[in-house]
């Protein structure tokens, strides 16, 4: 089944307001949600906050998934060496928000990052060079738009449309996701309404829906490979984390046989033995 994602719900100090926003997101039909912490200064880095407990029904609890995300605001002067830090690895998604052309170039080519976001509510200050965008797409990075500013403020709306249509026209929304950036529950909109907004931004209908479903899902898988794997080929985990049915692989024993298998096995064992003895006798 198709799952709708909203990978940018702003982390707010008021815990009650945060809970309310997440509950409304669940009610509107979002099944995967990420709470974003914005980091402007590298010294303020803290580990990922735990998921917030919501009073959800059993069905909702099974489907609703809360993730953590960190957005690092980049400028020319920032030292990016802390991006491989363990605290950053504790977050599910690592996003970067460039504010200058140089930081955009670095984000697209050098940094090991999942997502590149922009603050489209004002003039960006730099042009999104096609060359850098191509590099980022080749390296499997994703881009993000937020529709929250367009709904909150009429003056920001103009800039949001200007910037998003400019970007979408170049690459038709390839590898882009759309999220709310919601600080309050009133900033959220239902998934199909967001898809309609995406069409306003210049995306095609199929592209608009996939920016909420399949593209964020691919992004989450990419984020998992960045966090948990070595060069996307090997995962290292503790022995205790292996499920029971796979433990025979470590113990060096044979795979467990089922009941049906046992009955079949006994018949098979009998027949070849008989055949072998017959051959010997004839010789």
């Amino acid at each position, binding site marked *: 089944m198709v799952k709708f994602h909203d990978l940018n719900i702003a982390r707010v100090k008021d815990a009650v307001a945060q809970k309310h926003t997440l509950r409304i997101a669940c009610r509107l039909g979002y099944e995967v949600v990420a709470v974003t912490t914005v980091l402007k200064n590298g010294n303020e880095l803290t580990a990922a906050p735990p998921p917030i407990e919501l009073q959800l029904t059993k069905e909702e609890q099974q489907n609703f998934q809360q993730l953590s995300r960190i957005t690092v605001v980049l400028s020319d002067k920032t030292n990016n060496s802390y991006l491989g830090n363990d605290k950053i690895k504790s977050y599910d998604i690592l996003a970067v928000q460039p504010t200058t052309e140089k930081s955009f170039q670095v984000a697209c080519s050098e940094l090991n990052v999942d997502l590149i976001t922009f603050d489209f509510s004002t003039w960006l200050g730099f042009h999104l060079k096609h060359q850098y965008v191509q590099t980022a797409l080749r390296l499997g990075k994703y881009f993000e738009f937020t529709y929250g500013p367009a709904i909150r403020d009429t003056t920001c709306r103009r800039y949001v449309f200007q910037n998003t249509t400019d970007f979408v026209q170049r690459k038709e929304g390839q590898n882009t996701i759309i999220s709310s950036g919601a600080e309050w*529950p009133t900033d959220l909109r239902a998934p199909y309404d*967001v898809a*309609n907004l995406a069409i306003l931004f210049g995306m095609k209908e199929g592209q608009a829906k996939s920016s909420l479903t399949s593209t964020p899902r691919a992004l989450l898988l990419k984020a998992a490979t960045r966090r948990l794997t070595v060069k996307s080929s090997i995962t290292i985990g503790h022995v205790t984390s292996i499920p029971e049915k796979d433990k025979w692989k470590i113990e060096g024993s044979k795979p467990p046989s089922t009941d049906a298998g046992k009955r079949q096995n006994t018949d098979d064992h009998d027949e070849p033995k008989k055949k072998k003895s017959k051959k010997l006798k004839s010789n």
Partner: protein
Amino acid sequence: MVRLKNRYFLCKVIFPSPDESNEMLTSQEFRRAIEKAARKSLGSSDLALWATGYEMHINSGSSIFDSYLLVGKVIKVNSHSKTAIVRVQHRATRMLSQLLPFIKQHQKTDVIIQTLHVTGTVATCQKALIKYERRTLLELLRNTTNKDHRKKIQEALLSCTLDLQGQKIASDNDNDGFT
């Protein structure tokens, strides 16, 4: 003869404020909320899509402007379940579907409008509404812990069910909430 086509939007109105139960939804107020957002966000040509179209009022002087601003019909509003059916002309489908996310307020309270279904006839829209209401009632019934609430939901379900002989089990409530 050119066929005059309409599109019916089934919308759910969500009040995210904590005092949700106190908010009443009326068709006039909902129409005004749409009209307000339309005046803010749409240009003249898109606003004209709201006109009741084949109900021409060209001859009466000042009322041309009035008829163009008449929001193209909020057909039914259920104030209890907070659902509404809005009718527009076929060529205004895209315009309304892109306007609904920008509606922020209804009678000075914050509001989120969710489009549930877009259909070509009222009958299919009503079918979609019945399906949606049935699902939400069943979910509510499964998840309530309060005995009084559970009883009320069961009564609501029974009031619209028939027994094996095809007769109604419980009496109809006159006030279903439709205006």
